């Protein structure tokens, strides 16, 4: 599916608005799901989604096919934009970044929880082992590096690395099983 997206990115790079519309139709909801899990706020998520597509539009030339598939590139734009939003919002509120314990998957505003519960029917993450789910949450939705996760959880860096891999392997396995 994603192999056909490289020409779309190239078209966006050329200023083709229709190509961007096609990308939005294909991935807007997926990126919105990621963003919503990061920012835990419906309004902020929509703002971040807009910013994400504007960045895709502006920076299409920066996409390098040799470094990964188009979705990975767009996903990381969405994640980074969302994570930046959360961190700057935290700074604005003069509060420290919420502790990892408080900010686990599924915890947030009720409307967000409702949306995510609807999506959760199809979300295999709920079937992950708790420690894998926590790692996915930290690495994927909060953008922490493995060193930061190790610092925040008190786990050895080697354990964080192997557990990240184990979590992704379990995710891949679950995706296969629930296909």
């Amino acid at each position, binding site marked *: *599916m*994603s192999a056909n997206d490289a020409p779309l990115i190239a078209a966006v790079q*050329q*200023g083709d*608005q229709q190509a*961007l*519309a096609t990308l*939005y139709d294909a*991935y*807007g*909801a*997926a*990126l*919105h*799901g*990621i963003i919503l*899990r990061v920012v835990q706020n419906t309004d902020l*998520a*929509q703002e971040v*989604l*807009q910013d994400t*597509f*504007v960045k895709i*539009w*502006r920076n299409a030339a920066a996409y390098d096919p*040799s*470094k*990964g*598939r188009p*979705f*990975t590139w767009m*996903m*990381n734009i969405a*994640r*980074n934009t969302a994570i930046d939003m959360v961190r700057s919002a935290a700074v604005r509120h003069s509060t420290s970044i919420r502790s990892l314990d408080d900010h686990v998957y599924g915890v947030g505003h009720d409307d967000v929880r409702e*949306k*995510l519960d*609807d*999506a*959760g029917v*199809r*979300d*295999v*993450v709920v079937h992950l082992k708790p420690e894998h789910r926590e790692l996915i949450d930290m*690495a*994927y939705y909060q*953008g*922490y*590096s*493995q060193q930061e996760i190790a610092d925040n959880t008190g786990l050895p860096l080697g354990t*964080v*690395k192997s*557990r*990240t*891999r184990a979590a*992704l392997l379990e*995710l*891949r396995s679950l*995706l296969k099983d*629930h296909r």
Partner: protein
Amino acid sequence: MNADELIRSGLLEAYVLGRTSPDEARSVERMRASDASVRGELEAIEAALEEHALRSAVAPPPAMKAVILGKIAQEPRKADTPVIPISSEQKRPFNWLAAASIGGLVLSGLMNFLQYAEMREVRTELARLENDRSVLAEELGVQRASFQQSQEQLAVVMDPRRRTVWLNGVGNALGAKARIYWDKDAQAVHMDPMSLAELPAGQQYQLWALVDGKPVDAGVIAKGDTAYTLQRMKDVPNAQAFAVTIEQEGGSPTPTLTAMVLMGNV
């Protein structure tokens, strides 16, 4: 670190999520380029995350698409901000319009030059024709005057009321001849000098009418170009003979009889 160790290390997952240091990223990319299993593992991780994202997708509000496309439309058009090469030899796109206008200008200039040259030629020709025309007009005037004179002379000569009086040479001018056409009713006298010898400056032939034995001035004979054409003399009402003498230029009140050259009786 070999391929298997890299795959098991969890670094590939961190790489896909963009959470590796620049050094780690470089080593992953190096292994990806050289090792098929690393390549396959990275693709599997990417595919898993994409599938996960698609499965856990949350549809944004329907209006969001129009909002985003509206924002995109307000972005400066990419075609308006081309990357300008730093090279001094900046290739400009060939401007057909400019080329066409320059071509048109050159063509127009050429046409102007040709037309100017042609116009100058036409002007020269026109001047030549104008000159020819004036020459012909002048000639026509001369011919017309000549014709008129001839007509008048012919009329004089042919006039049945005129008498022709022959004058014959006398003394030194023996052999010379001249004619007089005299209309006695109108008293008009015309003279055809014919072959009178040319006179030096200061002298002029003068015609005399002999009326009852006395010479009466009948006018001097013209000198120069009109010397030998039929010419109107003074009116003479009555005469028995005509004579021509050589007098001072302008004529004399009385004839110098010793200088008589022509004589003829009516």
